[in-house]
C-alpha cells in the first residue's frame, strides 16, 4: 500500500500559469489582498460595536479561562447533548483544524509552486487531510439533509422575526465546494502520477470521476480547481463575519472570556463602580448599555436553538425564546452599524420595550437551562436581569409583581404578612420543632435562614418543622433569626429591583451580625443562592440537603427502610443544581434510605426542567399556554415515578398545584427531602404522616 501513496506534487503548477493574462502570483496576490482587506474592514466594523459596550472585566483567572477554552472550546464538551448535530459539529470543527494547514499550503502555492508547511507535507498529513475532506463532505450532506428534510423543531423558532437558516446553506455549500475543488485539484495531480489508493479516498474518487476527461484537459482543470478553491476560501472567510457563522471566529474567544463568577451570582448593575456609588441610569435599555462581552455573545450566537429547545418558558408557549434575544440584538447591532456606508438615518427602534418586549423579559424564570446548554457559553440570565432593571426603573412592572414587591418593601415578605410574625412558624402546629428563635445577642452553632415561603406559607412551614425535628434527632442545636429576618431578596434582585434587594440584604446581614452563629442552613435554594453568592457569605451557607447528607454520613441520622412499593424520583431545583452544582447531596440522602426505589427522570441534574417558580411567578400569572409544573409532573410520570422528591419550596408549591390541576391527586405525590427523610426515621408512621414526630 505504501508504495502507492503518492505525495501530491504541485503539478499542474498554478503559480506558473497566467490566468486572464495576468501572472499567477500577481493575480493571487491581488485576490488575497482584496480578501484580507475586506475581512479586516468587516471585523473592524464589528469590533467598533463592541467598543461602545459597557465595561466588563474578563481577563482575570487566566488559568481557569484556558481550561474552559480547552474543554468547552477545543474539547467541544457541550456538543454531544444533541448527538447527531453534536457529532456532525465536532467532526466539522476538527476538520477545520486539520484543513487549516492544507488551506495555508494552497494559498502559498499560489505564489510558489511546491510550497509546503514543514510537518504538513508528508504522506501522513496528505492521507489525514484527504480522509478529513471525505468526512467533511459527508457531514455537509448530513447537515443539509437535516435542514432540508428532517427539519428538527429547534431550527424553526416560532418567535423568530426572520430566519437565518439560509446562511447555513451558503456555508455548507462553500465547505462542500472547498472539499470538491481541492479533491479535483488533487485528482489531477494523482492522475498525472497514475495512482489511486485507499490512503487518499477523496482524491481517488475524484480521479475516478475524471477518467472521462481527456488527458490534455486535466492540467487546465487542475488549475481551475485550484483557483476555485482559493477564491471560495476567500469568500468563506469574508462571509463568516457578516453571517451567523461569525461564531467560527468569535466562539473560542467568547468561551475564553466567559463568566467565571459563580453561575448564581447576578452581575452588578455596572462593573467598575466604587462601592456605594449610584449609577445615573440603571439597567439595559439600548444596545450600547450591554457590556462589550454581552455584545460579543450576540456575535457568537450560532442560531442553533439549543437554548430555546430547553427553555421551559418556550416549552410552555410563553412569549420567550432566549435565542431570539441574541438574534434580534445581533440583527439590530448589524443594522445600526452597517459594514459599508453610513448608519441608516433616523432613530433606531427601541430595543427594550420594542424589539424585545416587556412580556418576553418577564416570562423568564432565570432557571439557567439555556446557559447550561449553550455550546459557546452565551449568558442570558445576567442580560435579562439587566434589561429588567431598566423596566423596573421605568416603572414598567406587571401588577401582580408590583404587589409582591410592595409587600417586600413594607413587610419584608412577598405575602404581605406582618413581619413580626415571621418566627411563628417554629410552633405553628402547636408543637415544638426544636428550632430556637434567637434574640439579638444569642448564639447558635447553626442558624436556619428560612426565607419567606418557609416562614409564612402554611404548607412550606411543615417542611421547616420537619427539618427542625431532623436536626433535633441528630442532636444539632439550631436557631433562627425570627422577626429580625426579612426576605433574602433573591427574587427581588432577579426581577431587577436592585435597590430593594440591597435594602433586604442589609437587614439580614445586620440580623446575622447581631447574633453569634456558625454555619447558616436553609431549606430554600433561592435563599442558599442569595446568601452564598449575592451576599457573598460563601461556603458557611448550606442547603439542607447538604447538611442532611453530612449528618447521615456522620451516623447521626440513621434512616430505616422505606419500601412502600412506590417509585421515587428527585427533581433538581434550578437554584440548587444548575446555579450551585449541588446534585449529589440530595441523591446521597435518598440512597441512604434502605429499600427506597428510585428512578431518574430523562431531564435530571443539569438538564432539570424548571417548576415555574422563579422571578416571583408564585405571585402572578404567566402567559404560557401550560404551566411548567404540569409538564414536569408529566415527565416524572413518564419516568415511572409515583413520588417526586424535591428540595425547594417553590417546586413543591408548583408541583402540588400541578397535581391538583391535572387531576393526578392520589396517583402522584410530591414531598420535600426533609419530609421524606423524616418518614424514614419514624418507622411506625404510615407514609402520609409527614407532620408527626
Amino acid at each position, binding site marked *: 500500500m505504501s508504495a502507492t501513496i503518492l505525495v501530491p506534487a504541485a503539478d499542474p503548477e498554478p503559480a506558473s500559469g497566467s490566468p486572464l493574462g495576468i501572472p499567477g502570483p500577481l493575480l493571487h496576490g491581488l485576490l488575497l489582498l482584496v480578501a484580507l482587506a475586506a475581512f479586516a474592514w468587516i471585523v473592524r466594523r464589528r469590533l467598533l460595536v463592541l467598543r461602545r459596550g459597557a465595561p466588563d472585566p474578563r481577563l482575570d483567572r487566566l488559568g481557569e479561562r484556558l481550561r474552559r477554552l480547552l474543554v468547552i472550546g477545543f474539547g467541544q464538551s457541550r456538543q454531544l447533548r444533541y448527538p447527531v448535530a453534536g457529532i456532525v459539529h465536532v467532526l466539522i470543527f476538527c476538520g477545520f483544524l486539520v484543513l487549516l494547514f492544507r488551506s495555508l499550503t494552497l494559498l502559498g502555492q499560489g505564489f510558489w509552486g511546491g510550497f509546503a508547511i514543514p510537518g504538513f507535507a508528508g504522506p501522513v498529513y496528505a492521507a489525514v487531510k484527504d480522509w478529513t475532506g471525505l468526512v467533511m463532505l459527508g457531514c455537509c450532506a448530513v447537515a443539509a439533509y437535516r435542514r432540508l428534510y428532517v427539519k428538527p423543531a429547534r431550527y424553526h423558532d416560532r418567535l423568530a422575526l426572520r430566519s437565518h437558516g439560509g446562511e447555513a446553506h451558503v456555508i455548507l455549500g462553500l465547505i462542500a465546494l472547498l472539499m470538491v475543488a481541492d479533491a479535483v485539484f488533487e485528482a489531477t495531480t494523482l492522475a498525472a502520477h497514475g495512482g489511486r489508493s485507499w490512503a487518499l479516498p477523496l482524491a481517488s474518487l475524484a480521479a475516478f470521476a475524471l477518467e472521462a476527461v481527456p488527458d490534455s484537459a486535466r492540467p487546465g482543470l487542475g488549475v481551475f480547481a485550484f483557483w476555485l478553491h482559493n477564491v471560495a476560501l476567500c469568500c468563506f472567510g469574508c462571509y463568516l463575519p457578516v453571517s451567523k457563522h461569525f461564531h467560527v471566529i468569535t466562539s473560542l474567544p467568547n468561551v475564553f472570556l466567559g463568566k467565571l463568577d459563580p453561575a448564581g451570582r447576578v452581575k452588578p448593575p455596572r462593573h467598575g463602580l466604587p462601592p456605594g456609588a*449610584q449609577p445615573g441610569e440603571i439597567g439595559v435599555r439600548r444596545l450600547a448599555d450591554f457590556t462589550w462581552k454581552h455584545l460579543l455573545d450576540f456575535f457568537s450566537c450560532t442560531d442553533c436553538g439549543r437554548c430555546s429547545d430547553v427553555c421551559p418558558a418556550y416549552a410552555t408557549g410563553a412569549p420567550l425564546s432566549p435565542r431570539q434575544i441574541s438574534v434580534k440584538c445581533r440583527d439590530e447591532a448589524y443594522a445600526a452599524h452597517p459594514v459599508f456606508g453610513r448608519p441608516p438615518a433616523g432613530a433606531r427602534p427601541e430595543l427594550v420595550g420594542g424589539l424585545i418586549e416587556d412580556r418576553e423579559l418577564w416570562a423568564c424564570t432565570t432557571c439557567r437551562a439555556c446557559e447550561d446548554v449553550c455550546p459557546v457559553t452565551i449568558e442570558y440570565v445576567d442580560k435579562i436581569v439587566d434589561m429588567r432593571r431598566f423596566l*423596573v*426603573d421605568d416603572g414598567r412592572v406587571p401588577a401582580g409583581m408590583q404587589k409582591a414587591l410592595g409587600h417586600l418593601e413594607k413587610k419584608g415578605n412577598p405575602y404581605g404578612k406582618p413581619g413580626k410574625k415571621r418566627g411563628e412558624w417554629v410552633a405553628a402546629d402547636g408543637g415544638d420543632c426544636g428550632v430556637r428563635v434567637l434574640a439579638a445577642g444569642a448564639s447558635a452553632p447553626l442558624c436556619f435562614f428560612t426565607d419567606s415561603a418557609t416562614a409564612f406559607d402554611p404548607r412550606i412551614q411543615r417542611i421547616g418543622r420537619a427539618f427542625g425535628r431532623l436536626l433535633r434527632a441528630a442532636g444539632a442545636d439550631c436557631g433562627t433569626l425570627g422577626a429580625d429576618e426579612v426576605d433574602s431578596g433573591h427574587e427581588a434582585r432577579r426581577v431587577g429591583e436592585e435597590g*430593594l434587594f440591597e435594602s433586604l440584604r442589609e437587614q439580614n446581614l445586620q440580623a446575622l451580625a447581631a447574633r453569634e452563629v456558625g454555619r447558616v442552613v436553609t431549606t430554600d435554594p433561592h435563599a442558599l443562592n442569595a446568601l452564598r453568592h449575592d451576599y457573598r457569605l460563601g461556603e458557611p451557607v448550606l442547603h439542607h440537603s447538604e447538611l442532611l447528607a453530612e449528618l447521615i454520613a456522620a451516623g447521626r441520622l440513621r434512616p430505616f427502610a422505606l419500601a412502600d412499593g412506590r417509585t421515587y424520583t428527585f427533581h433538581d431545583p434550578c437554584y440548587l443544581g444548575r446555579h450551585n452544582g449541588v446534585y449529589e447531596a440530595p441523591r446521597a440522602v435518598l440512597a441512604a434510605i434502605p429499600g427506597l426505589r428510585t428512578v431518574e427522570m430523562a431531564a435530571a441534574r443539569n438538564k432539570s426542567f424548571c417548576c415555574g417558580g422563579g422571578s416571583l411567578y408564585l405571585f402572578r400569572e404567566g402567559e404560557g399556554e401550560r404551566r411548567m409544573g404540569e409538564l414536569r409532573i408529566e415527565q416524572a410520570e413518564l419516568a415511572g415515578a409515583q413520588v417526586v422528591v424535591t428540595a425547594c419550596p417553590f417546586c413543591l408549591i408548583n408541583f402540588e398545584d400541578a397535581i391538583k390541576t391535572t387531576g393526578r391527586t392520589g396517583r402522584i405525590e410530591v414531598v420535600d427531602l426533609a419530609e421524606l427523610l423524616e418518614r424514614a426515621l419514624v418507622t411506625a408512621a404510615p407514609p402520609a404522616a409527614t407532620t408527626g414526630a
Partner: protein
Amino acid sequence: MDIIVCIKRVPDLAEAGLEIAADGRGLRTEDLDFDINEWDDYAVEAAVRLKEQHGGVVTAITVGDEDAEEVLRRALAMGADQAILLDDAAFAGADPFAIATALHACIRSLPFDVVLCGAVTSDGASGQVGGMLAALLDVPQVALATGLEVDGGRARVRHEVEGGLEREVEVALPCLITAQSGLNQPRYVSIRGIRKVADVAIAARSAGDLGLAATAVGEAGSRVRLEGLLLPPAGKRAEILEGSLDAAVATLVERLRERGGL
C-alpha cells in the same frame, strides 16, 4: 396644564391584627405598615399621565405629620413635580369636611386645571373629601372615574354610576375627578426612584400659613364627631365542605336553601 393630586397615607389593614388604641377613638398604629391609599395611587398615576401627554406641573398635597412625607416622596418618584405637606397639630382628628377645608385653603391659592383625588380611602372609607373639596372650590366634579381624557379645555370622563353601569361625561376644566380602581395601572416605584427624590424639598404649610383659624380645622372644625371605634364581632369560622364534588355541591345547595339563599 396644572394638575393637583390629593393623597393620603393609610395603614395596611389586610393582614394586620387590629387593635383599638387606649382612648377608644383610633387604632394602635405601632405594628401597622403604612402606604399611599390605593385609590390615591390611581389618582397620582392619572395626574402624571396627563402631564406626560399635555405638559404642565403636578402638585401632590397631603394632610398629615412628617411621616406622611413618605407618600409625597412616592408621588414625586412617580413623576409629580412638587409636593406640599399640610402639617399642623390643629389638623388632628379631622372629619372629611375638615380635611376638605384644609385642602381647599391650600389649593385656592394655586393655579389648577384638574384636581384629582382617590374615590375613597381604605381606612376611613367615607368617600366624601373629593365631593366636598369640589364644592368648596366651586368646580364640577366627576366621581369614580374609570377613564379620563383631556382635550382642549374639556375632560371626557368615564365613571361608575349606580346599578353597575358606567357612563361617559364631558366636563369643562377646571374640574375635580375622583379615581376609581380600573382607571389605570399605576407605575412601579422602585427603591432607587424614591432615593432619587430624597433631596427634593417638600413645602410644609400650617393652618396659619393657609389663613385658617385653628377652630376651623381638625376636630374643632369637624361636623361629625367620632364617639368611638369598635372592632366588629368575630364571625363563625369559614367551613370547607368535604367529600366528593357531587356531595359537596349537594350540601351547598341544601345550606343555601336552609338560609333562604335559593
